[in-house]
């Protein structure tokens, strides 16, 4: 298995946010994680990416254990993520937002940077080129030198995705990337997701927009009250009566 989550439990004081959830993700797939608000989706993301320390259970990527590592170490293993509420580096340009995420590949060290050695210059050029490439992938290259927070909301979402991709991940965790986007933007996002998947990166997606989820995800896991209530191919899950009752039933407008 590529990503393996086993018996994951997360408690905050007396509240059980995630209760004994196990699931697995195949390499190269787009895997959706859905469920009503407060069902523990973001908590799972936060545990997987190292922000919370799981109360129980374990996570592993390609057989290597992830649980217990610090967030930046987990990123180094090949995880990248975006945030539900945008967390861009607000005083940096779009380009720098993306470049800073490549830092784990910086070999220079502070001395090399001060001396601005040939190797550092090469590395810097490589960062810039790669960052621009990612910005082009997300169609925001023209804003490279704008301050990130000056961009429209939808574009800021794309900067977050570009930034996540810049860490050179094996798997990206996207936390509601379509939130706040209009229909056109959502369509573009869908194409972007497919492009990312096609470039060999696995996607783990938390999303409320069912059309998007059903359109791109091969596999879906459904949570309710912190428990897994269903999983399987999207077509199958969308017909699952338990899911309809627990989730779709509550939000008829979808």
């Amino acid at each position, binding site marked *: 298995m590529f990503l393996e989550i086993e018996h994951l439990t997360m408690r905050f004081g007396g509240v059980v946010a995630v209760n004994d959830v196990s699931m697995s993700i195949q390499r190269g797939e787009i895997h959706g994680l859905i469920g009503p608000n407060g069902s523990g989706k*973001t908590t799972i993301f936060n545990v997987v990416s190292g*922000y919370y320390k799981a109360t129980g259970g374990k996570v592993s990527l390609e057989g290597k254990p992830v649980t217990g590592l610090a967030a930046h170490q987990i990123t180094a293993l090949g995880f990248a993520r975006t*945030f539900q509420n945008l967390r861009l580096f607000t005083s940096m340009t779009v380009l720098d937002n993306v470049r800073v995420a490549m830092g784990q590949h910086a070999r220079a060290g502070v001395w090399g940077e001060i001396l601005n050695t040939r190797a550092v210059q090469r590395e810097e050029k490589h960062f810039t080129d790669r960052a621009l490439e990612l910005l082009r992938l997300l169609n925001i290259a023209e804003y490279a030198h704008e301050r990130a927070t000056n961009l429209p909301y939808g574009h800021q979402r794309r900067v977050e995705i570009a930034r996540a991709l810049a860490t050179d991940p094996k798997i990206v965790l996207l936390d509601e990337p379509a939130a706040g986007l209009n229909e056109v933007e959502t369509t573009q996002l869908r194409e972007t997701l497919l492009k990312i998947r096609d470039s060999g990166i696995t996607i783990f997606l938390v999303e409320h927009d069912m059309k998007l989820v059903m359109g791109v995800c091969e596999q879906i896991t459904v949570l309710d009250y912190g428990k897994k209530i269903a999983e399987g191919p999207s077509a199958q899950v969308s017909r699952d009566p338990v899911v309809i009752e627990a989730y779709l039933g509550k939000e008829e407008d979808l």
Partner: protein
Amino acid sequence: MNIVSIFIQTLIGGIGIGSLYALVALGYSMIYRSMGLVNFAHGQIFMIGTYFGIIWYRGMVLGLQLPYAVAFILAILLNMVLGLILERIFRPLANYDLMLMLLGTIGLGYVLENMAVIIWGAEGFAVNNPLGNTPIMISGVAVLPWTLLLIGVSALLMLGLNVFLAKAKIGKAMRAAAADRETASAMGIPVNGTNALTFAIGAGLAAAAGMLAAPIVYVNPAMGAAVGLKGFAAFILGGAGSIPGAIVGGLVFGVLEAVSAGFISSAYTKGIAFVIMIVVLMIRPGGIIGEVTVDKV
């Protein structure tokens, strides 16, 4: 003297000075909880408050020599007026970054201290003790009547403040405004007004501390800096913004100093107090009573 009475003797000294720290720390805490402002000029407000009272007691205004109790009340009232003015000036600072608050209020400290130098001179004076310098002996432990008064009045003030915040209508309004500015505002509480009152009470407490300290210390414009720093330490140690925290912090810091001076190493008194404080903060980053805010993702 046996070891127990030696310890008690040391402890009383620590509680005395600790009560002063606590009163000053309460000022920090009151202002912090209402406005989110860390007022680094509070030591100087304490100093000004002391002068505001002592000038009446020593007949420095129109030759009027008023009784100490009257001077005490005047000090509190005058300093509260100063507090009201300062609150108006610093209202915009409340939403700023800590660094800006730090510098802005330190700037105020410079102004207050040097204005005091200009008005009252740099030299300062000793204030005679209205209750005399003869200690009361209780089974080998010597206690100055003034120290008892100091501890007693401090305790009363702290108790009074707690009751005021808990029971009085305006106190409740202040608590509400401190807890949630917007909701309080929506409920019709004049938030700016309660903030001004909070600031004034903080300044009043500082004046009270100053007047309680005056007969046992030496009054000069530089007296605020040291007390201000220790009051700040007490405020942080107890837990920023917590009323019981400020009291506990002040007493702990005072006792810590006295005990390390008497029993560990007097040369390292301040160092020991600070190191213990740092260790406490490493274990409880929110202070002894303060709450730790979890970094939400």
